[in-house]
């Protein structure tokens, strides 16, 4: 492997570091399977892969407490799994089955789970941001200590909803952690082709929100940044903004021919990929070897295989159920 890898700090909890690696590997392999199932026609609609960005969600999710809410985007398979929605329920949702976490009504872009406070799966860019602000408002009014984690891409920062939401969260000092996953492309439009100010933290700071730039390819950095943000938000210091600089290795969606960037550019970033670099560091610290790797891969492969089987054998929601859940079934 990488002879140049820097060993992990001496004081690191080795088991925890290995667990971070396992979590990233799990969502990577899951999504590779999703892409495969898409190609074979089992999954339809849009499919937006998180491959390359795993260190962000994995690091962030370590600080998400049970009472918190996560408001994510349409590129949210990883966050959903990390948050604790079962792989079976996520895969079944992609298959459009009744056993899916949204009973087949949401698909890839709209994974929801009330039990874990996973409030979607919003496929309108910027659309989840006001919702996260509102959840934080409820938390503050109820003084329940919850934090709203608002995950979005840098493309959302061109939306009015970003600016309205930042202002409101700062004005009312609400416990929201704004997690910008800057993968440098809003679909096919590069950041510097769409923003007059590409120092994204400056936008947040203009609303007097504490903002940090974070290496989004380093899971230890993302974890530490998220912990600082969570501590600050929980202490009542208002919103916090984290810009995670990352990169999407795959196309925007399965329909994207990637005419806007070169293969070489993608390759350069892949060499700095979160699994590759962190795996090498684990090895340099003697926390990971070929055998342990093989064990992890085997466990994950088994879970994925089971999820596919679960989804395959799931129940198609009967068409007679079409009209359900437009309105709540229990009316006053």
């Amino acid at each position, binding site marked *: 492997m990488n002879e140049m890898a820097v060993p992990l700090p001496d004081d690191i909890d080795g088991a925890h570091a290995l667990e971070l690696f396992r979590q990233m590997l799990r969502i990577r392999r899951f999504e590779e399977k999703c892409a495969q199932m898409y190609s074979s026609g089992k999954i339809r609609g849009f499919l937006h892969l998180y491959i390359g960005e795993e260190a962000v969600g994995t690091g962030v999710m370590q600080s998400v407490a049970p009472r918190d*809410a996560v*408001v994510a985007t349409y590129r949210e398979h990883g966050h959903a799994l990390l948050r604790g929605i079962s792989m079976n329920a996520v895969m079944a949702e992609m298959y459009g089955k009744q056993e*899916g*976490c*949204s*009973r*087949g*009504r*949401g698909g890839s872009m*709209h994974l*929801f*789970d*009330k039990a874990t406070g996973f*409030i*979607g*799966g*919003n496929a*309108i860019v910027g*659309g989840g*941001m*006001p*919702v*996260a*602000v*509102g*959840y*934080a*408002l*409820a*938390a503050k*009014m*109820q003084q329940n200590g*919850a934090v*709203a984690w608002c995950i979005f891409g840098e493309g959302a920062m061109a939306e*009015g*909803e970003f600016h*309205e*939401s930042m*202002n*409101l969260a700062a*004005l009312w000092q609400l416990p929201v952690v704004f997690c910008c996953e800057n993968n440098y492309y809003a679909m096919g439009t590069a950041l510097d082709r769409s923003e007059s100010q590409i120092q994204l933290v400056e936008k947040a700071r203009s609303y007097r929100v504490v903002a940090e730039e974070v290496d989004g390819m380093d899971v230890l950095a993302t974890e530490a940044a998220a912990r600082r943000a969570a501590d600050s938000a929980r202490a009542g210091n208002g919103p916090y903004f984290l810009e995670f600089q990352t990169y999407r290795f795959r196309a925007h969606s399965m329909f994207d021919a990637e005419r806007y960037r070169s293969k070489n550019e993608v390759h350069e970033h892949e060499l700095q990929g979160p699994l590759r670099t962190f795996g090498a560091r684990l090895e340099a610290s003697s926390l990971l070897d070929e055998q342990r790797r093989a064990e992890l891969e085997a466990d994950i492969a088994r879970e994925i295989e089971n999820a596919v089987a679960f989804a395959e054998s799931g129940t198609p929601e009967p068409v007679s159920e079409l009209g*359900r*859940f*437009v*309105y*709540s*079934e*229990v*009316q*006053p």
Partner: protein
Amino acid sequence: MSTTIPAGMREMTYREAAREGLHEALTRDERVFLMGEDVGRYGGSYAVSLGFLEEFGPERIRDTPLSESAFVGAGIGAAIGGMRPIVEVMTVNFSLLAADQIINTAATYLHMSGGQINVPLVIRMATGGGLQLAAQHSHSLENLYAHVPGLKVLTPATVEDVRGMLATALADPDPVLIFEHILLYNRKGLLAADAGAVDIHRARIRRAGTQVSLITYGGSLWKCLEAAELLEQQGIDAEVLDLRTLRPLDDEAIMATVTRTRRVVIVDEGWRSGGISAEITARIHEQAFYELDVPVQRVCAAEVPIPYAKQLEDAALPQVADIVAAAGRLVKGND
């Protein structure tokens, strides 16, 4: 109004009734709070919440920035988070800035989540024209929202409804939009001393009649009642049906009045093209076509942005004389 008020009744304006409903909601349930532009220190752009800031404090009477999308969306998030927000959008015209949150989020989350995430949110807004406020403050766009499954659209026309619909809306597990016509705020009406929550699924006959049905809602109700008085002087007995709720529509009540009178005029301040009047006409066609003696007629806003000048605005909006003329043509033309 009459100088004698029946026992057990109180006379009050629509504004006072709306205010009483809000006051009761805030008093009864700690989870309820009011949020919107100028609801606090200014007292509400239509003075509905005057004094609330002092009484309930800034946590529960929240002045917001002019960020319709953010504060409507924040209402959605707060509702999901366990609160019972009442969001005031100053007018329906401005609600278009929050249309993403209302249509793409509030209306979809329950369905997209397979029944998990309901949004118990109430959004109030003013609607309609007649105050010479020109095109960007005078439109009746409630029909846009009545188009959307997942929403409920209420259009209280009376003091009883504007007071009581709020309580019912707050008890509803799903998003409810309440449209208050701007010309109604100063109108007086009688309210029972023990008035409370009202049903929101049924249209109501405000005047019984036998020869022609005037189907309407909101601000136009009073124009229809006035038209019915004038029609009576011409010997025409008109029934007035107040829809009260545009989504869901009370088909049963609509078909019942059609069956009784066999003649229909739909009166709506929205535009005719693609409006709620078109929807009602189609439903009558589908469900009660053979009950009709004559084709359905409509009195709607002219197909123009509502203009400022008085004579132009009057000409653009449905007027009593237009309703009388349309109903008269139907009845006399058929005699």
